[in-house]
């Protein structure tokens, strides 16, 4: 982790008689907090720049004529500050509260903030019991604000925290103060309903009950709630959340200010998406298919059947006729026990997980070049970077909290941002990271490979190479340089629409950086050639000499909450838990010894391989845990015919998904809210997941089910509790030991790098360093099926809160592109290509480049049919997110 080289100048001062030494530039209110003097305040917040508007934090400072706002006054040497020991300051606070309470309604009995309200707390401490205000209070008519967020402006104290948070932290600027004086109210910035990221930040930061959540309105009083700290189950950011429950019911979710990797910030999914676990469609009993229908049965019956069938198939066709697929949504313990069950009890290495859908490209590239399966940087390095490069991340919609780190770096600390994204600069209802870029290279979803090569070429052309490294590895440098010089700027321009100057300027910014982090996301990782592109980005770090520098590194963004953990726990068959290769004899030996079971000799299989094998009748049974490949993969993958051929399909799931409906046995699993365990976030940081409510119905944590199955198969693999599993994991793999507040980033291994730059790079250099062949016809549109901020897979479609923001798919176009084709918002169009056709409504979005259309993957039941399917030659990652399509306007319905 990068640290500041200069030592900070310290300042000594006295607050309420207590002396302390703090870094120069510290605000008096912060210095006071450090010595235990709590200065009351409304508008001050450590995440926001001081506003000094509430006047509550006034303190007496010797030698200064008037009371000063401690939130906007930096400390000075020898300052003497009086807060609670100053009668003047205390009286000032009383008067500020008198003023605020003058227009504040007596809403406590009906206000959701009651019991956790700053105004209540300060009033209790500072005011008399009777108000002297005997005039008319100003009254605002209550207006509907939005489906998820409620405002009651009579209660507002005009601290503007919500406005400032939405502007400074989120960069959305959805809220604004409207009106003047006592008639100031907070409204959406524009005369319309609130339409924003629904991150819940304004609800969390409002000190009173002026902005509250509609989702949990009137359901509780804060003192009735039981709090459980856990980790969000949606995306790879791994935010700290607190489940607030009452009577075993999930009431709301929030995040403690300053805690977790997210620093207390959340997104719509984390803040409003918790109702997934309590959806009425939750499976409550095991199901066995009899004829064409499912019959609910007892656990013993279901497990006995599964155990028996698996043993039968193993005996008849061999253990490798059985395959397993597990979701990166499961906990580390679930995944570890699953792969131990599959390898150690069933006897096969044919396991795969959702890591295969894209995250593997990132991890495998890191392993191949720098010998680590985790990032060599952390969120803190992103915040303190001076240069950031974002490639294909669409970060606000995929990993919003990592996006906040980028925003903080740029907005608060002046970092330079270069973006290569399929986005245009535009103001919209959600934030747009490319608006903050110093250099933005806007590409089509098919243009990333060329753009990355263009940036590399510009780096080489302008000599922004690390001389020392170049001297040590001349062959590698010369080879790469030669290939890049062989590419023509004309061709690059033809494929991306970007001139060489754009790349050269971006390269200059990149080359000048001292602490450089490259973030790469699904736009690259899930696009054809994704692995090669990720490798090229690592080449970029090597060429500029950044790869070994602390604070620099490549950060592939994990999509699902525990994709990183799924890799580390051995969820992808060819990799053992702990990250070693299945082909590594020493690693297999050690594991085998520890388990007291042999590890099978046969190679692992990827999901695409298993599909092929199933189609050829070589895969007889499939055990799917939490995954829904019929819904995730397009028909062009052959998944339908593959699953039909599988004789015995077992699905362990929360809901009766499309895939589960095809199963012979369905086992009900518990969600992340109902069990203990750990998740590993995209940084590689392991965090505790805690049970907040009892398992729904008769569902069980995944690991318990595997354990019970092993007993049924006469090869018991039992654990008393989750802690025991955790202990086993930690004893086996040192890298899993940390459960502290921050991750310890991995160290790039110099021998791995040496091996790469001498021999290994040559393997696929030719393919990686040639321009892709592009054959786009002009009337075609590049369709990108990608993630929406408000959803995550199909999982989030069971969250009633999120459905209120987005409940269906539209094909989103740039307004000019739509106008050119004669369509407007709400029109229906027929979208087609050689693979099929589909009819969808149109939506308009200015941030989508022309010639591109975006469809949210969460509603892609029909649209999937248009997607072609290919597999990465090295990582076997399936690529199916981009298609070329024709548009045809239909008559208005």
């Amino acid at each position: 982790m990068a640290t500041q080289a200069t030592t900070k100048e310290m300042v000594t001062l006295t607050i309420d008689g207590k002396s302390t030494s703090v870094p120069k530039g510290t605000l008096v209110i912060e210095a006071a907090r450090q010595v235990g003097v709590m200065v009351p305040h409304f508008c001050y917040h450590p995440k926001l720049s001081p506003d000094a508007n509430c006047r509550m934090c006034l303190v007496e400072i010797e030698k200064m004529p008037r009371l000063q706002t401690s939130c906007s006054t930096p400390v000075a040497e020898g300052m003497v500050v009086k807060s609670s020991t100053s009668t003047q300051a205390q009286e000032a606070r009383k008067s500020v509260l008198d003023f605020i309470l003058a227009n504040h309604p007596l809403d406590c009995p009906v206000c959701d903030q009651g019991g956790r309200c700053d105004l209540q707390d300060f009033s209790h401490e500072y005011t008399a019991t009777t108000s002297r205000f005997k005039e008319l209070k100003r009254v605002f008519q209550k207006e509907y604000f939005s489906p998820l967020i409620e405002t009651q402006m009579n209660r507002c104290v005009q601290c503007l925290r919500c406005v400032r948070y939405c502007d400074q932290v989120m960069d959305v600027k959805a809220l604004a103060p409207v009106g003047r004086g006592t008639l100031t109210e907070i409204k959406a910035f524009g005369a319309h309903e609130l339409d924003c990221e629904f991150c819940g930040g304004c609800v969390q930061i409002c000190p009173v009950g002026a902005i509250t959540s509609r989702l949990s309105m009137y359901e509780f009083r804060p003192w009735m709630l039981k709090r459980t700290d856990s980790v969000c189950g949606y995306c790879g950011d791994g935010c700290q959340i607190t489940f607030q429950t009452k009577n075993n019911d999930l009431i709301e979710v929030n995040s403690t200010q300053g805690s977790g990797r997210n620093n207390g910030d959340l997104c719509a999914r984390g803040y409003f998406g918790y109702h997934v676990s309590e959806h009425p469609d939750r499976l409550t009993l095991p199901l066995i298919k009899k004829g064409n229908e499912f019959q609910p049965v007892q656990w013993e019956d279901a497990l006995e059947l599964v155990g028996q069938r698996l043993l039968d198939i193993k005996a008849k066709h061999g253990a490798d006729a059985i395959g397993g697929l597990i979701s990166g949504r499961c906990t580390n313990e679930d995944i570890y026990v699953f792969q131990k069950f599959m390898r150690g009890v069933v006897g096969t290495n044919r396991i795969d997980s959702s890591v295969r859908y894209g995250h593997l490209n990132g991890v495998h590239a890191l392993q191949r070049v720098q010998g680590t399966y985790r990032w060599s940087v952390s969120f803190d390095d992103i915040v303190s970077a001076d240069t950031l490069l974002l490639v294909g991340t669409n970060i606000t919609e995929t990993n919003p909290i990592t996006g906040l780190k980028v925003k903080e770096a740029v907005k608060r600390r002046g970092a330079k941002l270069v973006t290569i994204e399929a986005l245009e600069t535009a103001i919209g209802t959600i934030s747009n990271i490319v608006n903050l870029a110093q250099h933005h290279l806007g590409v089509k979803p098919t243009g990333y490979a060329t753009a990355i090569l263009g940036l590399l070429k510009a780096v080489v052309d302008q000599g922004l190479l690390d001389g020392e490294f170049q001297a040590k590895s001349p062959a590698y440098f010369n080879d790469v340089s030669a290939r890049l010089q062989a590419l023509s700027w004309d061709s690059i321009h033809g494929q991306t629409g970007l001139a060489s100057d754009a790349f050269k300027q971006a390269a200059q910014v990149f080359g000048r950086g001292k602490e450089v982090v490259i973030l790469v996301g699904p736009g690259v990782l899930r696009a054809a050639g994704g692995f090669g592109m990720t490798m090229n980005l690592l080449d970029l770090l090597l060429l500029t000499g950044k790869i070994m520098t602390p604070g620099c590194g490549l950060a592939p963004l994990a999509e699902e909450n525990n994709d990183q953990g799924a890799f580390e726990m051995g969820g992808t068959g060819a990799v053992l838990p702990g990250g070693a290769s299945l082909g590594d004899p020493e690693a297999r030996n050690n594991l085998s010894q520890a388990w007291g079971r042999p590890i099978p000799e046969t190679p692992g299989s990827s999901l695409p391989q298993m599909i092929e094998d199933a189609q050829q009748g070589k895969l007889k049974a499939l055990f799917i845990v939490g995954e829904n490949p019929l819904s995730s993969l397009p028909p062009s993958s052959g998944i339908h015919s593959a699953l039909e051929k599988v004789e015995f399909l077992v699905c362990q799931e929360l809901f009766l998904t499309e895939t589960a409906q095809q199963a012979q046995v369905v086992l009900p699993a518990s969600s992340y809210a109902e069990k203990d365990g750990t998740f590993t976030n995209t940084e590689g940081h392991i965090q505790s997941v805690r049970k907040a409510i009892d398992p729904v119905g008769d569902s069980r944590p995944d690991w318990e089910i595997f354990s019970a199955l092993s007993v049924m198969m006469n090869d018991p693999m039992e654990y008393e509790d989750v802690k025991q599993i955790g202990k086993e994991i930690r004893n086996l793999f040192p890298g899993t030991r940390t459960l502290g507040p921050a991750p310890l980033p991995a160290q790039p291994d110099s021998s791995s790098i040496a091996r790469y730059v001498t021999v290994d790079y040559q393997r696929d250099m030719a393919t990686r360093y040639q321009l892709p062949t592009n054959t786009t016809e002009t009337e075609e549109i590049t369709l990108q099926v990608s993630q929406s901020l408000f959803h995550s897979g199909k999982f989030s479609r069971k969250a009633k809160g999120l459905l209120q923001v987005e409940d269906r798919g539209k094909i989103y176009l740039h307004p000019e592109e739509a106008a050119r084709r004669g369509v407007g918002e709400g029109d229906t169009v027929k979208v087609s290509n050689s693979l099929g056709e589909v009819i969808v409504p149109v939506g308009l979005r200015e941030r989508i480049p022309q010639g591109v259309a975006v469809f949210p993957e969460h509603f892609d039941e029909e649209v999937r049919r248009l997607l072609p399917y290919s597999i990465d030659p090295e990582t076997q990652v399936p690529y199916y997110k981009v298609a070329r399509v024709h548009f045809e306007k239909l008559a208005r319905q």
Partner: protein
Amino acid sequence: MAEYEKILLKNMEQPGYSGSLADYEQAGGYQAFRKVLNDMQPDQVIEEVKKSGLRGRGGAGFPTGVKWGFIPKDHPGPRYLCCNADESEPGTFKDRQLMERDPHQMLEGMAITCFAIGAETSYVYIRGEFRLGAKILEKAVQEAKAAGYLGGNVLGTGRTINIHVHAGAGAYICGEETALLESLEGKRGMPRFKPPFPATHGLYQKPTVVNNVETMANIPHIINRGGEWFAGIGSPPKSCGTRIFCLSGHVKRPGNYEVPMGIPFREFIYDVGGGMRSDKPLKAFIPGGASAPFLTPDHLDVKMDFEAVAMAGSMLGSGGVTVMEEGTSMVWAALRLMEFFYHESCGKCTPCREGSSWMTQILQRIWNKRGRTGDLEMLDELCRNIAGRTVCAFGEAEVGPIQSTLKYFRHEYEALIREAEATMPRSKEIPVMTH
């Protein structure tokens, strides 16, 4: 009656003077600018203005040369000049006349100031209601540009000096310099806390000078005739030069009058202004705009300069002198001003926002014969809890009328309250204001 030399109003009082560039040049305009470009260094210009003793004419009266000197020399820039033409102080109308009748005088002052502080871009922030003034200024800027006084390469020196006219949208608070900067940046016009000051962190957080229209109008004359000359006029060393005072209220000849600082109010009101409009004697007057505390006939011999008026318990402020005759209700006068302040309070800080509403409601009740015992003590306490506790000087401004009328005319308040208590049944004790 004494005749005083007009400096700022001189041109426009010539018959047939149109304010055009041709007329301005004929009257000697832009000579000072040429002098500065050809013969002077920026530091010298600042020195000359310091020597002149010129103090800001907007209301705060800060020494102009000293303010310019605060711009850091080693800052990479850019630097900005903002001319505060948001004249909104009730009783003040001098800047309007200066802009409408002799726009180039102020533009020349701005160009010289840009040279002195190293600014290439400057703005005139003119209140939105001055649509005629904005049009006239815009035209004058175009004239000056065409003649080479503004734009890139002014008068062939290679320097760039640009002036942009930017209209406000009807907020008194945007006359406060930091609120002006916020508004100019496209944000809601609410003041910033100081420090830091605009000189180091102004427009877009860059070094900025904010000066009033009249202050700018004085600059060409100081350059032409020297800082010493200017310092010899008026009431040196603290109050130099002339001021355009705006006389309004119950007088025979309300209007703008340019007089040297230091003449007594009596001379200004009775000689220059022609005295009271009827046989009713003077009851009270506001010496410097609505923010300035009221003064009484006892203060008629106070000199119209910064120090003397401050000693008398008020402020020279914007120079708006409003005269009230016997028969004017002081409670009504305070209420009228308080309603203005309530309407204009931006709402940023708690004491001003809530306090202005609270005090206005009390005053309205008192005026409407619905006052109660304890109201005056409440007003006193509210004033004490607002002044000195706010982000900007608006807090001090809004308590001025109430505090000063309570000081000198408390009996009027008390009489109204007594009347209320006697006539108003308890059951009808309803507040009056409905926002």
